[in-house]
């Protein structure tokens, strides 16, 4: 049984959920379902690990080339893994035919997008941290500047997830979504991947933070623009 949104509401109060609480409840419900199911999460993890291993194997045993390729490999692997995850944002809703219930909830629809986005971020951030440690181990990626690297990770993942969640919702009812989603997504998020790779490379090479900051700026601009546009478009596209 899937816990319904109403069950999460405080008993006896009968007050409609406010926007922020709705976002939180939806994200936590999805997270609970995802963790309880485990199969999806584990397959993404396994895919990611295998990919890193194959890339490390293909790039050879020498430390130099591996270290140089590390930021690129890290972000491409993350992009692939999060594409697998993004289809999961709406897959269960379609499988269990609960998407319409969700859309029929009174009030505006932005909170559905934001809730799904929060759910994606809650999954992606731990995955990204894990990926960082694995890249550190397998690709000799130096992790001394942990905090700036973490910031790059968070900004990059947010930019990616904001578009991925939107497209996942848009394509949720389509049959060929598994193929279409990466096709549409990758071309659109190339600036994010590019900026994130550049920022990571800069941090790894020991560039001063001011120089890396311009990449963070770009990531931030991308995040804000795509988040706003997606949140505004989502209700229009999903209705009817």
């Amino acid at each position: 049984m899937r816990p319904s949104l109403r069950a999460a509401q405080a008993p006896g109060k009968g007050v409609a959920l406010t926007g922020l609480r709705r976002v939180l409840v939806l994200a936590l419900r999805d997270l609970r379902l995802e963790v309880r199911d485990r199969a999806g999460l584990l397959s993404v993890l396994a895919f990611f690990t295998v990919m890193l291993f194959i890339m490390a194997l293909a790039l050879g045993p020498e430390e130099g080339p591996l270290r140089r390729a590390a930021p690129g490999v890290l972000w491409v692997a993350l992009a692939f893994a999060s594409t697998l995850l993004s289809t999961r944002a709406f897959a269960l809703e379609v499988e269990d035919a609960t998407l319409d219930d969700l859309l029929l909830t009174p009030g505006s629809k932005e909170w559905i997008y934001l809730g799904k986005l929060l759910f994606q971020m809650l999954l992606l951030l731990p995955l990204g941290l894990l990926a960082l440690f694995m890249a550190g181990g397998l690709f000799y990626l130096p992790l001394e500047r942990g905090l700036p690297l973490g910031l790059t990770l968070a900004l990059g993942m947010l930019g990616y997830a904001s578009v991925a969640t939107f497209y996942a919702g848009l394509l949720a009812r389509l049959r060929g979504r598994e193929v279409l989603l990466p096709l549409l997504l990758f071309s659109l998020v190339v600036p994010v991947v590019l900026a994130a790779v550049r920022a990571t490379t800069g941090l790894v090479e020991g560039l001063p933070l001011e120089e890396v900051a311009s990449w963070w700026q770009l990531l931030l601009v991308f995040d804000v623009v795509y988040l706003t546009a997606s949140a505004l478009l989502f209700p229009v596209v999903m209705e009817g």
Partner: protein
Amino acid sequence: MLKAANPDRPDLLTWAFLGLGLLLLPAGLYVALAAPPDVNQGYLVRIMYLHVPTAWLGYLAFFVTFLYSVLYLFRQDPRHDRMALASAEIGLVFMGLALVTGMLWARPTWGVYWTWEPRLTTTAILFAVYVGYFLLRGAIEDPELRAKAAAAVGILGFLNVPISYMSVKWWRSLHQTQSIDLTTGRIEMEPAMLQALLFNLLVFTLLYVGFVRFRGFLAAWEARKEEA
């Protein structure tokens, strides 16, 4: 751009734009070939008279797609969706032409057809975004959902243009590239060359308006056949 919901044939204005564009095209070609050769590039510079207008039309067409996509989402009028489609299609063709002419110019100038320079890369990505636009359109049967999804991609895809542009700027502040700055080159251009370029820009824009209106009419015709 098209007034009637179900036009029987393209209207007079469409024919006027198309006719004027096609008529002036040889004149544009003549001006481009008569323009003086460049000090550094010689006669090679004449590719520019084709390259710059096609690239400009690519951007313009994607902007028009963006506008009609926004309009469609607010008004839900199938006409707006058809115009967005028409403009995206023509934009894709002109963007492809811009890429090809750019490559033809790059081979003798840089020695290679393709290099991973920011402007080339972002243009290629833009091209890919609109290829995705048509893949999406092809994948959805339901006309209303198709129009909505396409509009969303038309809007989000266009946002990539300014962001890509800024990424070029930021990239340049960090990395030195061998690219030639077109914006400063245009200001330093000789009057005769500038006039030739502006004339070609005008001719191509006229052609674009004619093409879009004609394609919009064809799309309306197709939609009517689909219904019938």
